[in-house]
């Protein structure tokens, strides 16, 4: 393909008028570049602008400012039916008055494809989603998972440059959703089509995506591979939204080229040896964050970055045990993996037990205050 | 051109609504304005409209009279107010009776087996699809002195050796009431049915679960939830009753004068379109006021269109 980027959003703004008559920037100066053949996700809670961004790519909405490019071409106000992208809707939007075959054939008919061509391609795509033999059914007669596959098949049969998926698994139960995630990913890899996927489920995004754009309040908070987003969240929002984090308010006490020392008033303690990110100033008020699974519970005190506390609660959830520790009045979450059987009550931390928490400096993140 | 239209949603909406709006403006709003203009006019002796601005017709409607018994120049003549009041009372009575008759039937249909519901519903609609005038005529056959009801009653009385004089039913206000109730009953059944049918069965279960007995469930759950249907039905019954003149003409023997008759007469008998227009507008304002207060209290049920 000629262009490196399948989809490009350039400084896109979408304004809506709320029912109260206020102006709202649903999408607020968003720029992103989605590479060809990439599985790209937009992740965020509802109202963050991810669906609006997707709809602007599809052509259901037009940007108030900025420009959407598909395969390098500025889209302007091109209507949806003139864009080589197709959408899988959250509600699937399968035409209830048409059969499965007619649903899938709809897009091909619009292209003016020949009858036998249509039949061949519908058959092929049904094989692809493993629903051969369902042609005569009406959408209502299918299960949720089957409907979802038909929705994907209907979009894929058009061989779009980009497939847009708007929370396509939202209506399915957990087990089915997990299966479908893997299937979708496999399908994408097999076909090599660019997928732009919108979800509010971080695990789903992590599972499938090559890259994720975390969005909030109409802005892209961070854009990167799943591991970057998890391990190096750009700000407190991302750190909080993706996975769990313990946050402490702090101040940079000293700053060298390699590492920083941060003072945390709540704990009346210093954390040393923290890797430095750009743009920090000595003395700046910052937020310190550490993932619960990266806090270690130690029986005996160590010399550096250790804190004493009391266990206030433990929750057994199967893979992990969540231990809540009171650290000078501040509650800290610790996830301990259950590598050994916890059937023996002795292997549990008991409420009130004194413990020492270790926060290794390389696991501690310094985030700018928002 | 097409592209610009495609991009202008507001223009698309306006364009789609235009034919209907032309009809509404041309055949509802302009005629109403014309009626308004005529109502301020005066009649010539031959019944022509002399366009002027005079409130005489309205003053006359509200009881001002220059035709007094005791030689006064003007006096209060409640004639037209009485007609207005009579129409309001009749419309009110009709509506109440119609609700009382419609509710059990609508309830019965709504709670019937779904496979039979459509059939029961069609049985309500079929009389509606016969003709309005035919239905009134059918009641003439039932109500007259030698009509079916009197024959039936006479036969019954004969069985028990009770002396029987045929009841005088036709050409009475009662006949008009019966005719009105009959004509507009389906218009109440349908909206009530629609709103009852919407009530989820689990609500009855919840009510029963919370310890409500049949009557309490009805009073606290069923009735409030079916109010939109009753409201819609009331609008569909009350307003036509206020304006109908055929029922009172045929079943009332032209002796029961309602606003509808008054208006029709002004145009067709008395050759006074100005007074008739004024009466039309007063009738319209009356129904609007009743509708406004009624719907403000109970809301404007969307059942009005589902019916």
């Amino acid at each position, binding site marked *: 393909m000629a262009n490196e980027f399948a989809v490009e959003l350039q400084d896109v703004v979408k304004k809506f008028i709320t029912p109260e008559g206020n102006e709202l920037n649903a999408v607020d100066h968003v720029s992103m570049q989605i590479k060809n053949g990439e599985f790209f996700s937009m992740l965020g809670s509802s109202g963050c602008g991810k669906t609006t961004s997707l709809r602007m790519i*599809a052509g*259901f909405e037009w940007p108030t400012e900025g420009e959407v490019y598909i395969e390098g071409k500025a889209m302007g106000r091109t209507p*949806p*039916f003139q864009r080589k992208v197709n959408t899988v809707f959250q509600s699937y*939007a*399968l*035409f209830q008055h048409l059969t499965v075959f007619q649903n899938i054939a*709809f*897009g091909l008919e*619009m*292209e003016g494809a020949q009858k036998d061509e249509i039949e061949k391609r519908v058959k092929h795509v049904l094989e692809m989603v493993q629903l051969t033999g369902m042609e005569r059914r*009406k959408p209502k007669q299918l299960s949720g998972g089957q409907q979802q596959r038909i929705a994907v098949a209907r979009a894929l049969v058009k061989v779009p440059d980009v497939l847009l998926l708007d929370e396509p698994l939202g209506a399915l139960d957990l087990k089915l959703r997990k299966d479908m995630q893997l299937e979708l990913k496999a399908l994408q890899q097999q076909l090599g089509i660019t997928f732009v996927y919108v979800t509010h489920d971080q695990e789903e995004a992590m599972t499938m995506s090559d890259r994720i754009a975390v969005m909030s309040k109409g802005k892209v908070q961070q854009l990167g591979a799943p591991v970057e987003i998890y391990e190096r969240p750009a700000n407190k929002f991302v750190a909080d939204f993706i996975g769990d984090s313990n946050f402490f308010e702090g101040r940079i006490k000293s700053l060298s080229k390699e590492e920083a020392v941060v003072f945390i008033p709540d704990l009346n303690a210093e954390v040393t040896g923290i890797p430095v990110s750009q743009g920090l100033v000595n003395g700046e008020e910052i937020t310190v964050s550490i993932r619960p699974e990266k806090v270690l519970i130690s029986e005996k005190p160590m010399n550096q970055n250790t804190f004493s506390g009391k266990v206030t609660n433990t929750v057994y959830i199967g893979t992990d045990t969540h231990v809540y520790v009171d650290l000078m009045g501040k509650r800290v979450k610790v996830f301990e993996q259950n590598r050994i059987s916890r059937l023996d009550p002795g292997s549990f931390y008991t409420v009130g037990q004194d413990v020492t928490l270790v926060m290794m400096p390389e696991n501690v993140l310094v985030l700018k205050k928002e | 051109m097409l592209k610009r239209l*495609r991009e202008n949603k*507001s223009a*698309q*909406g306006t364009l*789609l*609504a235009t*034919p*209907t709006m032309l*009809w*509404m403006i041309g*055949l509802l*709003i*302009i*005629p109403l304005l*014309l*009626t308004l203009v005529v109502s301020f006019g005066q009649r010539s002796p031959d019944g022509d409209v002399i366009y002027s601005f005079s409130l005489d017709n309205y003053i006359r409607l509200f009881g001002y009279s220059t035709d007094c018994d005791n030689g006064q120049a003007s006096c209060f003549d409640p004639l037209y107010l009485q007609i207005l009041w009579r129409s309001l009372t009749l419309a009110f009575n009709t509506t109440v009776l119609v609700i009382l*008759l419609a509710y059990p039937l609508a*309830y*019965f249909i709504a*709670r019937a*087996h*779904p496979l039979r519901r459509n059939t029961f519903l069609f049985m309500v609609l079929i009389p509606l*699809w*016969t*003709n309005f*005038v035919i239905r009134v005529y*059918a*009641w003439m056959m*039932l109500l007259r002195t030698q009509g079916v009801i009197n*024959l039936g009653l006479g036969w019954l009385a004969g069985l028990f050796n009770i002396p029987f004089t045929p009841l005088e039913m036709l050409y009475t206000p009662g006949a008009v009431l019966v005719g009105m109730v009959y004509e507009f*009953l389906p218009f109440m059944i349908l909206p009530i049915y629609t709103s009852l049918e919407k009530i989820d*069965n689990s609500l*009855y279960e919840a009510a029963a679960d919370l310890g409500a007995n049949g009557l309490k469930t*009805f009073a606290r759950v069923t009735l409030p939830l079916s109010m939109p249907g009753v409201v819609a039905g009331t609008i569909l019954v009350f*307003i*036509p009753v*206020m*304006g109908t003149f055929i029922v009172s003409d045929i079943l009332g023997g032209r002796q029961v004068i309602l606003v509808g008759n008054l208006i029709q007469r002004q145009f067709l008998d008395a050759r006074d379109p100005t007074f*008739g227009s004024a009466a*039309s*507008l007063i*009738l*319209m304002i009356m129904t*609007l006021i009743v509708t406004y207060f009624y719907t403000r209290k109970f809301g404007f049920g*969307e059942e*009005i*269109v*589902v019916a």
Partner: protein
Amino acid sequence: MSHDPAHLTIPWKGVCGMNPHRRHPFIFSSAMLVYVFLYAPIIVLILFSFNASRANVTFEGFVPTFSDKVVMDGSLVKASPCGPFHWFCELAKDKDVAEAAGNTLTIAIVSTLVSSVIGTMAALALQRYEFKLKPFSQLSLYIPIVIPEIVMGIGILTLFSQLFGVINGSLGLTGDSRLSMGLGTVIVSHIAFSVPFVTLVVQARLQGFDKSYEEAAMDLGANEWTTFRRVTLPMILPGVLSGALLAFTLSLDDFVITFFTNGPGSTTLPIYVYGLLRRIITPQVNALSTVWILTVFSVVLILQWLQTREAKQH
């Protein structure tokens, strides 16, 4: 009326014991009484269409058959070649009835078609678009519902007579080219009172309509018109049809508006029946009513049969 076929396919999930009103004898008996009230006049009407008495006040028995000509004794029909169906034969001979029936159907069909099309358009506009006159448009649709028919009828009469006077005068139209009351004015007026009902019914249907169906169609390459034709219209069709049915019913039944807007050659059945009622009321009126009722009844039965069949197919 919404005849959702889903009703027919979803099994009845009632919990008999839970619903305290179901099969309550009071409900059942009062419902049956209301049905009797609804049907008694109609049954009497039909029975009397076989009446031998021309005056049709009391039922004097069925008209005896077997005679090649009608024999009258005073007001009693002693014999008729058509037998009990004497009055139906009389009706069949009456070409005014055929003409009135034709007019009624013409008016009902044309006004239903026009009001369904423009009413659906308006419903789409009101439900989907924002435009300047939207609140006004929505409000104006309630006018025919909240004002008495006679007010509307007289207003329209005044309008047409004034308008035609002006047009005929200014264009110098005379003779047959003059604009005058007739089928055209009746149809135009019937559209006026049908449109709001169609619009409101379709609007109600559109309220539950997920916009993503249309977006899906456009996404798959259908332009606006194709989307409407292939997706939107089939999906709102039940709403449009019940709106159209309502418009058709209103048009068939209308007396008042037609009374004020008709002219030569546009007599409808309701007007004709009213005319018959004003002449000597013979059982011919009943015969006409019987034919009418049976026609409506069979049309409804056929429609329902078709609907049930369709529901079963799905």
